[in-house]
């Protein structure tokens, strides 16, 4: 019995679904908070919700809630795609995204993807999902067929998909999601020669492997590997639906694909979460520290400990790729510190966490403290806990935070943590790998600040060096990532996905500048970016970004002062800039005026426009050393 599903049905039945749309995401969060139910049942319920949500007209929702984020999603495929709609709409709604769905012509997926003027391309989808089943190869086979025929047919299909990916890169929009092809037994076992049958398996996998490798050459392409999904969901298809309705996948596999496709979209919309907040008792170890004592808890290679050791190894693996780890636990702080330092079976140690909140305050207070301490939004937190009441409290008091339900069976904890790809990102960068260390350097700065009287003295003691120059090729992924992850000092809120950053960098009319910061405590790496272009009336700053890690040290002022001085030295008439308010960047509203920019009319829609006449440029803040190389012709130090 799922109360959330009934409530959604009641909203639908009363004709209130559009008006009540803001209630949908919280309802779906409650529906998926079912850690002790098989995942397929929860997925079924989500599909049921999707069926109701798919009947909504996006414009009706927007009439009630004009600021609801809308995503245009195109679905096409070699086979029938109708069964993807409901789970896809539901998965988007879970993340607060309202779907505007465009469906391609049946069986015309190659035209949909390659024709610059196709209906699909005209809608400029942010996400295009192309459903490919094994029939895409099988229908190309003669009768009787051999393994060599399969090899040729799959190579022809590969050629077409490569063209489609290239065409998408040229005149498509957003990201294109393809899938690997499942290999059904009713195909392999038509070959009775067991050696040839093995070869067929190899040929098929070679096709899939090549398809997966295509993503290296096409930045706007993602390929969802169906093998791990099928290993979870069971049968890839139902022979009856495949034959009667050309439905390539089982409902469970469609649901799993919808989920993965939305992870791809989320990562490219800057919705990647930053910090995993873990409970301790019965989450990172078996037992309750306060009752069982340090000798009574288990997280090593014992029967009870093994699942918890697996969770700790998973957390360590995520942390190595840039996920910040934190603890929120109802415990006395002393014993927790002792376990983190001394317990022989712990994989995770105090140094793996950027914040340990072990106390008896409510958990929403702990989560707020973690977010504030890191300078990130509560929305960037993922909170995992095995206690339903704690999860319900956090969902209610911090609706922006993500809550991962852990159930009574700890062996499922790791799978639950990974189920929604909360930390998926298009590319992990060097910056990600160094992230935990950088937050610990930040803690050292806080200590210095507390030991020194005035803020100015503190800044001087830091010895901050800012280096500005065009990004090197190896830095482009990081530039894109910065635009996806930065909210507070993102002066227009614009995101630049990976394929777009390469285009911008190659465009001679554009100026990209990377901002790197180091101080006596360490190298913060590439933490800022300026996007600009030249016009007849001077330099136009399209956007500027600075990671929250580098805020409050005058870095943004140092950068912009250097840009203004450079513009004046080149004899440019002015520098123009724009600011667009977002949910998170309100505190940066006064940035341009603080440097002598004056409002410039006419205003351009939602943008505030500014102009600086370069007559009076403020000095670089005294505590900063700025090394500027705007032409990018100085060698790296």
């Amino acid at each position, binding site marked *: 019995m799922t109360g959330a599903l009934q409530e959604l*049905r009641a909203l*639908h*039945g009363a004709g209130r679904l559009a008006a009540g749309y803001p209630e949908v995401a919280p309802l779906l969060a409650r529906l998926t908070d079912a850690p002790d139910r098989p995942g397929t049942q929860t997925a079924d319920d989500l599909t049921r919700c999707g069926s109701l949500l798919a009947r909504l007209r996006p414009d009706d929702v927007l009439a009630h809630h004009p600021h609801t984020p809308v995503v245009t999603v195109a679905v096409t495929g070699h086979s029938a795609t109708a069964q993807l709609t409901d789970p896809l709409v539901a998965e988007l709604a879970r993340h607060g995204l309202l779907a505007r769905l465009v469906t391609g012509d049946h069986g015309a997926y190659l035209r949909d993807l390659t024709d610059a003027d196709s209906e699909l391309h005209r809608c400029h989808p942010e996400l295009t999902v192309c459903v490919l089943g094994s029939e895409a190869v099988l229908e190309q086979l003669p009768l009787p067929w051999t393994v060599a025929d399969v090899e040729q047919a799959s190579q022809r299909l590969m050629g077409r998909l490569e063209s489609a990916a290239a065409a998408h890169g040229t005149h498509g929009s957003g990201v294109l999601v393809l899938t690997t092809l499942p290999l059904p037994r009713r195909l392999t076992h038509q070959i009775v020669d067991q050696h040839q049958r093995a070869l067929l398996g190899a040929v098929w996998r070679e096709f899939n492997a090549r398809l997966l490798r295509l993503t290296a050459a096409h930045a706007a392409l993602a390929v969802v590997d169906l093998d791990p999904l099928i290993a979870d969901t069971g049968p890839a298809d139902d022979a*009856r639906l495949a034959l*009667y309705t050309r439905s390539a996948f089982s409902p469970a596999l469609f649901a799993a694909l919808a989920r993965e496709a939305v992870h791809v979209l989320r990562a490219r919309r800057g919705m990647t979460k930053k910090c995993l907040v873990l409970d301790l008792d019965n989450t990172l170890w078996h037992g309750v520290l306060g009752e069982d004592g340090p000798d009574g808890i288990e997280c090593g290679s014992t029967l009870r400990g093994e699942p918890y050791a697996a969770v700790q190894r998973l957390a360590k693996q995520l942390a190595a790729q840039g996920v910040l780890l934190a603890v929120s636990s109802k415990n006395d702080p002393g014993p927790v510190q002792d376990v983190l330092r001394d317990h022989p079976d712990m994989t995770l140690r105090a140094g793996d966490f950027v914040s340990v909140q072990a106390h008896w305050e409510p958990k929403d207070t702990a989560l707020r403290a973690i977010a504030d301490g890191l300078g990130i939004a509560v929305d960037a937190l993922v909170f995992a806990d095995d206690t339903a009441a704690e999860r319900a409290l956090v969902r209610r008091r911090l609706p922006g935070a993500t809550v991962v339900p852990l159930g009574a069976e700890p062996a499922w904890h790791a799978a639950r943590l990974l189920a929604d790809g909360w930390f998926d990102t298009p590319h992990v960068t060097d910056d990600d790998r160094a992230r935990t260390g950088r937050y610990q350097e930040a803690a050292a700065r806080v200590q210095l600040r507390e030991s020194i009287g005035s803020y100015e003295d503190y800044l001087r003691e830091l010895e901050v060096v800012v280096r500005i120059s065009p990004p090197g090729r190896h830095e482009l992924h990081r530039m894109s990532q910065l635009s996806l992850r930065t909210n507070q000092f993102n002066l227009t809120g614009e995101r630049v996905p990976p394929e777009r950053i390469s285009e911008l960098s190659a465009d001679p009319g554009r100026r990209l500048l990377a901002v790197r910061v180091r101080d006596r405590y360490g190298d913060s790496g590439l933490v800022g970016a300026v996007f600009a272009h030249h016009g007849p009336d001077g330099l136009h700053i399209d956007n500027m970004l600075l990671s929250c890690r580098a805020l409050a040290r005058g870095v943004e002022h140092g950068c912009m002062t250097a840009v203004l001085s450079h513009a004046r030295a080149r004899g440019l008439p002015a520098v123009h800039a724009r600011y667009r308010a977002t949910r998170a960047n309100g505190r940066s509203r006064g940035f341009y005026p603080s440097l002598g920019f004056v409002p410039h009319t006419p205003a351009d829609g939602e943008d505030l426009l500014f102009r600086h006449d370069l007559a009076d440029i403020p000095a670089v803040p005294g505590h900063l050393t700025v090394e500027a190389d705007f032409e990018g012709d100085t060698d790296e130090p």
Partner: protein
Amino acid sequence: MSRDRMADLAGFLDAVRDELGLDLTDEQAAADFDLLPDWDSVHLLRMVMFLERETGRSVPVSSVLQARSMREVHALVSADGTDAR
């Protein structure tokens, strides 16, 4: 248990209303699918899966896909499914 629930048409319609989220009246049980509000061909596929799960028996898929009304589907899946049409 569920099988019993769906043995008569009223119980079957109740179950289908829940599963598909359709506002079906009893009168619409005999109506052509195309005349039902919010009808979608995917609903038939979902019904096949749902009926198999609920009854624990396999459903004559090609016949269900050709059915034109809820009454026909019910006749196909109820114990003596011989009086369809």
